[in-house]
Each structure stands twice: as C-alpha cells, then as structure tokens.
C-alpha cells in the first residue's frame, strides 16, 4: 500500500520520512509525496487506486485538497482510494465539507503522529 502525502510544504516530506523512518525501513509504510493537487492527480494516473491511501492537506496553492478530493470522488464515488484530509485548527467548515465530499477520515494540525500512525495502520 502506497501512502500519497499531498502538501505544498516541502518539509512535510522530511518530517514524514524521519518520523516514520523505522516503519519505512521495515517496509510497513511506503510514502510518496506530491506538492500540489495537480501533481497528485498526475501521480494517481499510473497507480492502482486500490493500493493507494491519500493523505492530503486542504490549503494549497493551485488545486486545493478539497478540489482534489472532489475530482477523485467524481471518478470513484465510493472507494478506493482511501482519502484522509488534514485540516487546519478551527477550520470546521473545511472539515464538514471534506466529509460531505467523501473523505474517509480527517486529521487536525498540528499532527499527532501517534494518532496518525494508528489511523494509517488500521487503514492499510
């Protein structure tokens, strides 16, 4: 199972790679990173969607996470892939919108990596 992290922040890649170093080494988590919604859609073209879990930020320049969600769910309304949205603190509107568009789950910044690990493990 490939976990696609979509975030415009470059440091997210570093953070995830360092935070889940052991899991990556153990082959438990396989991360891929996209810096925008557009990149993510491009990446997903060659992927088996059933083997992908998307972890996307909402506020991004260009295509937002919500738009990405809408486009993916417009092609496969039910599943796969599994999509988890990362919302900013207090952004209840985006939270509600994401769930309405078919997001499987959501996380709130700042990320609690213990919680994230548990959610990833249960989804994989």
């Amino acid at each position: 199972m490939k976990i696609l992290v979509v975030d415009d922040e470059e440091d997210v890649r570093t953070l995830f790679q360092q935070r889940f170093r052991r899991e990556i080494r153990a082959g438990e988590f396989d991360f891929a990173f996209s810096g925008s919604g557009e990149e993510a859609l491009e990446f997903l073209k060659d992927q088996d969607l059933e083997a992908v879990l998307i972890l996307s930020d909402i506020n991004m320049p260009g295509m937002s996470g919500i738009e990405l969600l809408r486009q993916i769910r417009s092609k496969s309304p039910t599943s796969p892939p599994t999509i988890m949205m990362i919302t900013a603190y207090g952004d209840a509107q985006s939270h509600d919108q994401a769930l309405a568009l078919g997001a499987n789950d959501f996380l709130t910044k700042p990320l609690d990596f213990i919680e994230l690990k548990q959610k990833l493990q249960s989804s994989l």
Partner: protein
Amino acid sequence: MKKYICLFLFTFTANVLFAQSFNAASIDSLKNELSKAKHDTTKVLILDKLTTLFASSNPTQALRYGREAWALASKIKYDKGKVLSALSSCQIMLNTSDYAEALNKLLEARYICEKSKMPKELGNINLKLALLYTNRKQFKSALEYLSKAHQVRDSLQIPDLDYPLNQTSGYVYKDMGEFQKALGFFKNAYQNLITKKAAHQLSTTSYYIGSTFAALNQRDSALAYFRKSLSFQAKFHEGRVYYGLASVFKASNQLDSAIFYAKKALTRSNENQFIPITVFSAQLLSELYEKKNDLKSALFYTKIATAEKDSLFNEEQIRQIERLAYDEKERELIIQRRSEVHQADLEDKIKIYGISTLLIIVLLVLFFLYRNNKIKHKANQILHSQKEEIDTQRAKAEKAFQDLKATQAQLIQSEKLASLGELTAGIAHEIQNPLNFVNNFSELSIDLTQELKEEIEKVSIPEKDKEYIDEIIGDLTQNQQKINQHGKRASSIVKGMLQHSRSSSGEKELTDMNALTDEYLRLSYHGLRAKDKSGSTSRFNADFRTDFDENLPKIAVIPQEIGRVLLNLFNNAFYAVNQRRIDPVETLHATSEATQSLQTQYHPMIFVTSKKIGNTIEIKVQDNGTGMSEETKAKIFQPFFTTKPTGEGTGLGLSLSYDIITKGHGGTLEVESIEGEGTTFIIKLPYI
C-alpha cells in the same frame, strides 16, 4: 310835534313792503287760490300775500288777512308762516299805529327766528323792532336792535339785508337828530336800489333824503328830492311827500303853497288811513290858518288833529306797549340767565366729560400697563420655563454627549479589537503551519536524540569520550524539549487567536442563565482549587455568594460560548482575590506593619448576581480583589493583554469573551473597577 313828525316819518319807512302795486287781478286770483287751497301752509302764504297787496289800498282788510294768516299758522304750528305774517302785518300795524299788537307779534316772531335759525327774517324783525322803539323814542333799545341786525348781516353775509339796514339806520339816526349820519345811510340805501329799479322803494328813500335835507334847512335839495319821490308815482307815499312839501313851504313862509300841499297831504292820508299823516297835516293846516288869522279853519283842523291823535296814542295802548316791552326785557333776561345756566351747565358738562375722559384714559393706561405687565410676567414665566427646559435639555444633551463619547470610544475600541482580531486571525493561520513544524521537528529531534543515545550505547567508546557525548546528547535533548515547550506555548496562543475568528458552530438555545452561571461558577472554583497545589499560605482560598433573580426568563444563547465567558470572568475574579490575599502590600500599598493585619482581616469574596432589567438580562460578577488602574482597564479587552506572569495567561480570555458577548449575542460586556478595592464585570444580554 317833533315826535309826531318822527312817527310819521317812521311809518313811511316801512313802505318797503308796500312795493307791490295794487293789482285787482292779482287779488282775485289769490282769493280764488285761497278758496281752492288744500293745505293750510299754502293758505297761510296766500293770506300773507293778500295782506301785502291790501296794505296800501285797504289797511283794515290787509290786517284782517294778516291776523287770519297768523292765527292759521299758529294753529298748525307753521313757524315760517307766522314770521312772514308778522313782518307783513307789523308794517301795517306800525302805519296804523297799532304798536302793541305789532310789538307782540314781532317779539314772538323774533323768538321763532332765533329758535328756528332764520337769520334773514331775524334781521328784518330786528329792524322792525328798531323802528318801533325809535318811534317810541327809546333810542337805546332801537340802537340795540339795529346793532343786532348789523351783526346778522355781517356774520352771515346776507345782501338782501343791505337796503332795509341802511334805510332803517338812516331813519333811526335822523330821528336821533344825527342828520348827516342819517343822510349817509339814506344815500347808501338809494344806491342799493338803483340797480333794482324798485319805484316805490326809490320813492320812499327819495322822500327820506328830502326830509333830511329839510331838517338840515337845505330847502332846494329837500324840494328836489320830494319832487323826485313824487316822480315815481307812488300814490301811497304821496300823502307824506305832500306833507313834506307843505312843511318846507311853511318854513319859507310861503303859506298858501304850504296850505295847498297840507290839504293834499290830509286828503291822501285819509284815503290811505295813515293816521299820523292825517294828524300832522291837520295840525299843520291849523297852524297855517292860525298864521293867516283864519281861526275858524284853524279850530276845525285842530279838532281833526286831536281826534285822530287820541286814537293814535291812547293811554291803554301806551301801557300795553310798556308791558310788552317789560315782558320782552324779562324774556331776554330769562333767556340770558338760561344761556348763562346753559353755559355753566355746558362748562360743568365739559368738566365732567373732561374728567371722565381723563379718568377713562388713566384707566386705559392703567389697564394697558397692567396688561403689559401681565404679558411681561407671562413672557418671563415662559422664558423662565424655557430656560429651565433649555437647562434640562442641555444637561440631557451633555449627558447624551458624554454617553456618545463613551459609546464612540467603546465603538472605536470595538472596531480596533475587531480589526485586530481579524489581523491576528490571519497571522495565526500563517504562523500555525511553521509552528506545527517546529513542534513536530522538536518532538522528532527528542526521539532521534534518544535513538542516537541508544545507538552510541552499542558502540565501544572510551569512557571519557562517552561521558562527553552523553553530556552533549543530554543538552541537545534538553534544548529540543525547550523548543517543543515554547513551540506548544506559541501553538496554544495561536489556538486562542483562531478561536476569535472561528465561526461558531453552536446553536442558540433557550438557556436558564442562573443555572448556567451557577454551574460555571462552581466549575471554576473547584477547578482552581484542584489545580492549586501550592503551600498553605498561597493556596487558593476564596468564598463566593450568589443572588440570582428567580424570575429570570430563559434566553437564547450558545451555552458553551457563554460558559466560556463566565469561566473566564470567574477565573479572573478568583485570581484577583487570591492575588490580593497573597500580596496585600503590593495590592493595597499598605505599610509593612499593617501587612499581617490586613492579610488576616481580608476575606476574599466573589459575588455573582443576575437581574432582569427591561428587555435585558444582567449578570454581574463582582470581586473584592486587586482591582485595576484606569490604564489597565482601558486595555483589558485587547488581545494578548494580560497582567498575569508569562506563561500563565495568553491575554486572549477577555478579548474572546468580549467578542462572544458583543458579536455573538448582541450584548454588552462592561467593567467597573477601583484599584485596590475590586472589579465588577457586567454582562448584559438582550432577552428578546
């Protein structure tokens, strides 16, 4: 004799009214008119005309008509008719020497003229009276009436009076012996007549001029005017003219001529019933015959003269005239007295009217003054009340202005806070992500440091080096922890900031504010007690009391948010009382000696009340804590402003509370505070 001459002359002066010639046709016509006349006034006038027409030819008949006219005019109270009748009749009466009746009628006519304002007639009446009194040798009275006639003519400018006035004046003065003066008046009278061509009147005036010349012994002039008088063929006057000629001839001792004219005079006067001329002519003839020693003829004419004279001046007639004159004087005196009384009455009336008018004016002035005063008083009252009203309004306006200023300040503050809130929310969003990285990387670094330490343990390193490495790793770990600690602190600030901008997801619901307040009060109290693990002296210890309005209605609020506000206020209140309890010196600026005493005396207390005021619900949170300065009070609702030590407060509690109450619920949050005595927060929420 002289008297008789004068009388004779006098009677002839009145021949003015006999100017009309005798006309039988006119008499018949008038008699016919009289028989047909329907109105009594017309009858009076016709009778008066008949009187005039018969005057020369038949004086007896003329007087009959005259008396009839007078009686009818008296009966019907026709004053003018009476006056005209009096003037016509009186002339005949003077000719026939009936002076008593003449005087009686003239005085009554004069009274009528005065009463009825008939000036022309009054002038003529006065002249007749002057003639009558001249005849009576009462020149004083004669001149008085003459003067009255002059006054009438002069004051009223009546030209018709000129001739009779001159004629009468001439006669009076002639009779008084002032011949030159008389001659002047007669000549004026003659001039008055020239344009009128009145033959009979010219004849009369010529006669008078002649007789005046005769009196002045100017024989030729006298004869010339006598002859001029005869040339006018006035038969009525012929008797006296003949007498005049006889007198002139007698004076020149031409006795036969004198007898001739005297006889002609006697004959003519008998025909015309002119008794005086008859008397004078008879006397003259007696004298003439006596001169000629014809005593028989002289006696004859003397008898005629005596007989006629008796009829002319009997005693009864004289007494009657005197009585009438006396009555007239008395009447005039009465009139004069009445006039004086009337004048006095008039003066009294004028005085009364004057005083009354003055009194009315004074009263009016007083009334206007009183009215003006009243108006002024009223105006003053109005002004006073207006001033009071203005003062009240000014006070209100000042208060409103102060309120407005306060509201404006509050509004500016609100706007500032709102814009600041929006700004901070924006900043918070931007800071949030990097801060998350800080937190995450620091946490990660702590873990990595721990992993590094574990890995180093596996490697064989000299003890000395190992200690040094452990020390470095220890410092690194500590640093990462510090970074993480402060990062989380910053993160919590950002969270608080974001709560400002976060749109509420809660729904308003009808809430019992008393219950909600009580719940959060207890939550705060117990929370603080549980949290405070400090020593016995600084340990949290406070009391609280509540006084809730039992009739407080439920209101629609978001309970969680109002709860958050209440919790903030209670926490602050408990913090303040606790601070004062712990450090009274600093709080109250007390002396060190008093510190202990104050500390033991101080009883920390929170007093919470609820009340319904109009359409508003008021929750008051009052503490007797440290209070705050005006400077502090002005800033407490600003975000990040706090008086708590670093790390203990974010400075967002009251800012957030302010937003919840004002923006979220349309209410107000106010603060009252006295430094060193305590603070009161007042929440006002609209209830409808």
